[in-house]
């Protein structure tokens, strides 16, 4: 689509931006700003420290762990161990929807739990208060699981939160209690928190329940957090196809799903960045392989469903999948043809997350819009350039501090779902395993790829590209709009959605149309600002 449009060389823009920076800063930022070549995929510096003071989109390790990965699970009491702020800010702010089985089933997501650490706890240690808080939570709610999340001071004062949790777990007997050492300063972004979350999920939950349900085609969906109900759309699609969803990590999930996830036969990864670790570990320990999927975009959704069918290699499944796709695409095509005339050829930019800035290009493509620049907030090089660069990534001090679990095949439970021969055969048919191509191959030549964009760069880019729609997060929302450019949040979807699957695609098209057709943007100037100072003061003067 939009093949005819050629993008300008971003070189001068890049130079202009860098010229403003102190030398050291310019030197560093230069490597994170790359004119795309979809063939050669030049290296994009990523997952490195943000320059202090540069005004970044990024959050912290705690946000990635408690906020992103563990947030969407409804039946765990998540206690933030620290001063009140972290627990407060991560309270219900990510729009992870959840749907308890019945009105009586657990749902702790609307709650915020915190030890509200005070000065004395910092001075004398917070373990006692943490223990007491866990006890109070247990007494109040009798949950199946209690998780503890460390905030910055916890690591520094040396609270052994894992020991506390272990003690309480043993004491309770009927409640899993576990902790995450996800102090905010760890790593360079939320990404470290994802990794830590993956590790603890794997250590404390995955594999706890070996019971196998009756479904024929049993998969897990990884890296789908049910923002705005995305996971519901995918759940419904899979069900119509006859594919059983064993566990989602972690949209609309329960503790039980994690415990049972290893019994599935395939891990499908939506957000590679946040969740590939647990997929890797599950494959190593239990033998189920993973593939990259993407349910953002109608074409991408169809492709993803076909990939799953291909994996299971079952005629009936394939037939059903095709039937579902055909049904859905009819509606999608109708919507596209109605809306595309108003969006065709317009420019989009997106700077967000660790996979969304890639996935959402699919949707803009379907609207005939061109992504002129994009980048991640907390991606790694492989998210830009593809997993083949993994071996060449230099592990720096910040990443080295994040634990890499040593995982081995489970002596009893390891069972490769496909033989090496089968996998090779599938690969021959184009179904690649353990692979992710990154955002760059899908982008145009000369599209400007920027990792960890700064506020300054964002302003300059908008001035240069004058996009029709700019995508990022809440912090950027009104900065961009104040420049007269409609802004779409791709973390929260601006409280709209779902955007996943075919139905979500249509919803997204509609939402973008509303932004482009919104007549308010034509009212920016008052008449006296349009016409300047001339007056026709006929009567008074």
């Amino acid at each position, binding site marked *: 689509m939009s093949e005819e449009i050629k993008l300008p060389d971003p070189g001068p823009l890049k130079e202009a931006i860098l010229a*403003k*920076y*102190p030398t*050291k800063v310019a030197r560093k930022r230069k490597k994170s700003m790359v004119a795309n070549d979809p063939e050669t995929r030049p290296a994009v510096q990523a997952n490195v420290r*943000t320059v*202090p*003071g540069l005004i*970044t989109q990024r*959050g*912290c390790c*705690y*946000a990635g762990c408690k906020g992103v990965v563990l947030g969407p699970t409804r039946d765990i009491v998540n*206690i933030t161990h*620290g*001063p*009140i*702020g*972290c*627990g*407060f*800010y991560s*309270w219900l*702010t990510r729009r992870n929807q959840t749907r308890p089985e019945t*009105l*009586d089933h657990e749902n702790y997501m*609307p*709650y915020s*739990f*915190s*030890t509200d650490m*005070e*000065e004395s706890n*910092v001075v004398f240690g917070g373990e006692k*208060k943490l223990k*007491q*808080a866990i006890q*109070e939570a247990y007494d109040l*709610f009798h949950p199946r699981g209690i998780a503890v999340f460390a*905030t*910055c001071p916890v*690591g*520094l004062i040396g609270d052994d939160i894992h020991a506390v949790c272990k003690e309480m777990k043993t004491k309770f007997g009927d409640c899993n209690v576990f902790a995450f050492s996800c*102090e*905010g*300063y*760890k*790593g360079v*972004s939320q990404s470290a928190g994802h990794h830590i979350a993956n590790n603890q999920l794997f250590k404390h939950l995955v594999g706890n329940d070996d019971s196998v349900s009756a479904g024929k085609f049993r998969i897990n969906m990884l890296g789908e957090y049910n923002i705005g109900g995305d996971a519901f759309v995918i759940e419904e699609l899979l069900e119509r196809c006859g594919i059983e969803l064993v566990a989602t990590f972690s949209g609309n999930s329960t503790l039980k799903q994690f415990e049972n996830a290893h019994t599935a036969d395939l891990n499908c990864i939506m957000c590679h960045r946040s969740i590939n670790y647990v997929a890797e570990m599950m494959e190593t320990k239990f033998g189920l392989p993973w593939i990259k999927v993407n349910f953002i975009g109608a074409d991408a959704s169809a492709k993803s469903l076909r990939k799953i069918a291909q994996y299971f290699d079952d005629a009936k499944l394939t037939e059903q999948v095709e039937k579902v796709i055909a049904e859905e695409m009819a509606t999608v095509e109708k919507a596209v043809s109605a809306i595309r005339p108003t969006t065709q050829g317009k420019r989009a930019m997106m700077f967000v997350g660790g996979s969304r800035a890639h996935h959402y290009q699919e949707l803009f493509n379907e609207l005939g819009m061109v992504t002129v620049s994009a980048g991640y907030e907390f991606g790694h090089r492989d998210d830009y350039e593809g997993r083949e660069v993994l071996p060449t990534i230099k592990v720096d*001090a*910040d990443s080295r*501090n994040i634990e890499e679990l040593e995982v081995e095949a489970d002596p009893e439970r390891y069972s490769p779902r496909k033989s090496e021969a089968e996998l090779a055969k599938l690969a021959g048919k184009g179904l690649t395993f353990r692979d992710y191509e990154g955002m760059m191959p899908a982008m145009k030549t000369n599209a400007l790829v920027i990792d960890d964009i700064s*506020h*300054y760069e964002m302003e300059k880019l908008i001035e240069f590209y004058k996009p029709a729609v700019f995508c990022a*997060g809440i912090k950027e929302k*009104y*900065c961009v709009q*104040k420049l*007269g450019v409609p802004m779409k949040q791709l973390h929260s979807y601006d409280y709209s959605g779902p955007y996943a699957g075919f139905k979500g695609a249509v919803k997204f098209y509609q939402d973008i149309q509303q932004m482009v057709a919104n007549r308010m943007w034509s009212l*920016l*100037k008052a008449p006296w600002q349009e016409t300047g100072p001339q007056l026709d003061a006929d009567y008074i003067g």
Partner: protein
Amino acid sequence: MLLRHTTKTVADREALTVNPAKTCQPIGAMYAALGVHNCLPHSHGSQGCCSYHRSTLTRHYKEPVLAGTSSFTEGSSVFGGQANLLQAIDTMFTVYNPDIIAIHSTCLSETIGDDLKQIITKAMEDGKIPAGKNVAYAHTPSYTGSHVTGFANMCESFVDQFAESSGVKSKRINLLPGWVEPSDMRILKRMLAEMGLDVVMLPDTSDVLDAPMTGKGGMYPAGGTTLEQIRSMGDSAFTFALGDWASTSAATKLNAKFNIPVEVMDLPIGLSATDRFLDRVRTVTGKPVPASLTADRGRLLDMMTDMYQYLYGKTVALYGDPDQLIPLTEFLLDLNMVPKFIVSGTPGKKFMSRMEQLVPDSKFKNGKCADMFLMHQWIKNEKVDLLMGNTYGKYIARDEDIPLIRMGFPIMDRVGHQYFPTLGYRGAMHLLEKILSALMDRKDRDAPEESFELVM
């Protein structure tokens, strides 16, 4: 039920806070710094703090909220944040060109003991602070007080670090407005302007966090107290400090350094508190309260007496910050309403003594474990007619079918608080209109068809 695990039985809690009615210091410091002209707030800590505070303020105001962070890593946490802060100062002045950088600390930098003053001195020595540019700093450990404390500390720092004595006393009045909305800052200025006073207000977020849409952008909106104005505060004749929690420390500092007399007063929320404020301004300055304000007062009272029957005896649960809750409780009493349950996560003993005096028969608590979960439990035991507080109340409102008046911080699901004040008589009228709408909409909704009223 959204809050399906909230039970009627209230158990004592000592360690677990559930659904807090406060947040941490740095966000208050950031808000205060946004009320200074051409000032860029800076968070000395992990990136998450800054991101969380910016996000929360942005959701509340639907406005750009820019601030820097020292982007602590594990290394800085071990070796101290000096290098990060020095680079941040350099980068921010170079790239974003603020007049002032206002640094606040975090639990992290406080725990490791970073000495902000020393680092800033070093920055100055290293030439990282361009001529004519300034750096302010406040220690705002997240593990003491609350967001209000952070606001107070940043305000105190501004006057401590910038206010000067020229040797010549002015007739100017210092006004510390407390943590109120841009719309409230605006109405405070307007009221005192109507009294013909020369006022410097610190901070002043009007024209900053209610900035117009122009399509032109820009890092620093038109508003904010200027450095020049802050400097002049040392010469002022008097300081009015509104809100004990938010404004006392800055006022005390001005008094200590410049011997400026101080009156700490309740925020002028509602009729009686506004009466007290204006009357004290009158007696201090000798300027009469102008007819325009007396007329506004009369209009508020008119609205109250006209509609008293929809208010009389209605019970309210409220949560938020002491500076707001105290005069709001008093206003509700003036409206013949019953403020029944009151919680604030912000500690401070005066809260309990003021409430004991105002509403001895009600349930109220502040500080440790004084949270929305507790208030909700109280409500489970005895339903109220109205909830007043920030957006988080909507979960209780829905579960218990109680109308919610959004007031306080943060309000993330409605607009208006930026633009329409709750302070002063006009603000009280806005607030009263909202209360009446909520109660009367409910009355209309619940009326049987036969007693659905045309005239009310």
